[in-house]
């Protein structure tokens, strides 16, 4: 990296050449800077402002102070959707990490077949989320769905995944596990970067396979584990498409259960904004989500400082 861009010289007076270079640099950066101002900085300020107003798109925003945030704290529908989202995240993320790690460890050991199996595990990721929602709506069908049929074969009467409010979430989590392929690929890449010498050294020291896994593999891939923890957490806190396809969008009235059972935070936010035109309230919801994501990520980063081993760390 350093070969390409030497550090900025610490001189006060920049040469005409350096100034010319800097002008060109900003010209190259211009599209992103303009995009940042229009699509990030501006909208962030705007939505922060809107979160203190009542706004229905037709009439100009009315400043209402902290009303939206007060309502946010006491609204049972928001609490319900947040609870569901946290429940989903708390199960989805660890399960994805565990199963992916298991699959990656197996993949690492099968030599030439690796490419084939990797493809198999990745194909569900390529499937459009709407199609995934439709597919699992049918696979989870109580009487005739593939999943309950399979459970029936081993003598288990499968639950009503898509109609019983208690089983809606487990069904969604089950569906979410089908698309874990990218995490498998990340772990596999990390496992293949572990220097073999370390295993050999550990084996010479008499470490068994569990000891080798605990004291070589885990520390060496802790960076990847930490990374997927953060990325998967942020993504699952924003779960939208599959569940919206299955249970929302002109379908709430057709559900046999109260659609609260399948309500996720971003789905609720989307409905507040674009169905009920509570743009101010939805903006407040968005900022709460942002703060929640920031806090969770910060906690994860703090914890990781204790567990993650960085190669070539010179601290």
């Amino acid at each position, binding site marked *: 990296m350093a070969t390409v861009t030497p550090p900025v010289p610490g001189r006060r007076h920049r040469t005409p050449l350096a100034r010319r270079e800097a002008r060109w640099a900003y010209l190259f950066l211009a599209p992103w800077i303009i995009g940042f101002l229009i699509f990030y900085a501006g909208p*962030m300020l705007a939505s922060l402002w809107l979160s203190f107003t009542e706004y229905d798109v037709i009439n100009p925003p009315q400043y209402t102070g902290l009303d939206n945030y007060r309502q946010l704290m006491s609204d049972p529908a928001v609490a319900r959707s947040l609870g569901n989202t946290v429940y989903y995240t708390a199960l989805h993320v660890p399960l994805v990490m565990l199963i992916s790690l298991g699959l990656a460890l197996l993949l690492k050991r099968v030599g030439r077949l690796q490419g084939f199996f990797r493809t198999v595990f990745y194909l569900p990721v390529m499937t459009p989320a709407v199609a995934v929602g439709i597919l699992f709506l049918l696979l989870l069908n109580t009487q005739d769905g593939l999943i309950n049929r399979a459970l029936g074969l081993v003598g288990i009467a499968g639950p009503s995944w898509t109609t019983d409010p208690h089983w809606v979430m487990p069904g969604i989590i089950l569906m979410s596990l089908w698309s874990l392929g990218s995490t498998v690929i990340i772990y596999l890449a990390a496992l293949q970067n572990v220097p073999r010498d370390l295993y050999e050294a550990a084996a010479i020291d008499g470490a068994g396979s569990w000891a080798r896994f605990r004291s070589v593999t885990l520390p060496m891939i802790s960076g990847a584990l930490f990374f997927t923890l953060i990325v998967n957490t942020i993504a699952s806190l924003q779960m939208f498409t599959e569940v919206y396809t299955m249970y929302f969008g002109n379908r709430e009235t057709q559900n046999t259960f109260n659609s609260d059972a399948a309500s996720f935070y971003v789905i609720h936010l989307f409905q507040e904004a674009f169905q009920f035109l509570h743009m101010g309230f939805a903006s407040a919801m968005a900022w709460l989500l942002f703060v929640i994501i920031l806090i969770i990520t910060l906690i994860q980063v703090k914890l990781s400082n204790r567990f993650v081993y960085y*190669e070539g760390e010179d601290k």
Partner: protein
Amino acid sequence: MTTAVERGAAAPVPGLQPGRSAARRPPTEPARRPIWHRMLFVAALVGAAVLFMLPFVWLVSASLRPREYVFAPGFLPVPFAPENYAEAWQAVPLLTWFGNSVLVGVAAAAAVTLSSAWVAFGFAYFRFPGRNLLFGLVLATMMLPFAVTMIPTYLIWSNLGLTDTQVPLWAGNLFGSAFYIFLLRQFLLSLPREYFEAARMDGASYPQLFWKLAFPLIRPALLVAFVFEFKASWTDLLKPLIYLRNEQLYTLPRGLKVVLDRFGYGGEQQWEVVLAGSVLATLPMIILFFLAQRHFVEGIATTGRKG
């Protein structure tokens, strides 16, 4: 290709000789593991692979059965009813949606690839005050939930009179996107600077450096960006849900949602139409994966992008 370069394969592993990283070793597994061990691993993977493939098999097979057999046991399309696809074709404007998805996908992918490469070159080649701060800002935008900017962005397009057009689905991509800027910058940094210095000596301008030198050299990375964004656009439901009212403008996922609501539960229960539509939306992505498999795997392994 980049993996080895910036994954710090060159970074010394503590306690080992620098540069002797495992990645460079020939991948010959020492034959200390008994053969039945390996067979056990393969068997476990085959089991998992069957679990992962069954939903696909069922989807395709059920889409080829008559309505009353959609939920029938078994994985074979008997009785065979390929006319489901013709029926789906007639019931909803599938071809129009398919074309819309292709157009929007290509526009979104081309826009983001070109603009991100341009910006990435700015970050990789030049030294200028505030570079690290700006690049930090680029990375920070990846953390921001879509929901925060969703409403004001909608208001922008709405004020420009562009809601209920496909423009908002791709035009934002003209300004580059953090993930791809990051990816392409990594590739650009792995190119030897002497190339560019030599071209400068020969009197090439900066845009020429970018267009004639850098652009062809990072083609693999450009393809990674293109296929990722095409896939992201092809599978997106949220933006079409926000911006499109006119059914003729729908992309496939948006159309598929209508198909489900109209022909699925609460509708006419014509599952064969719903399933045929789902297969048609999925198939191009499967083909894309097989065409560009290397780029997908490389993209994920180098950047850790989710999906």
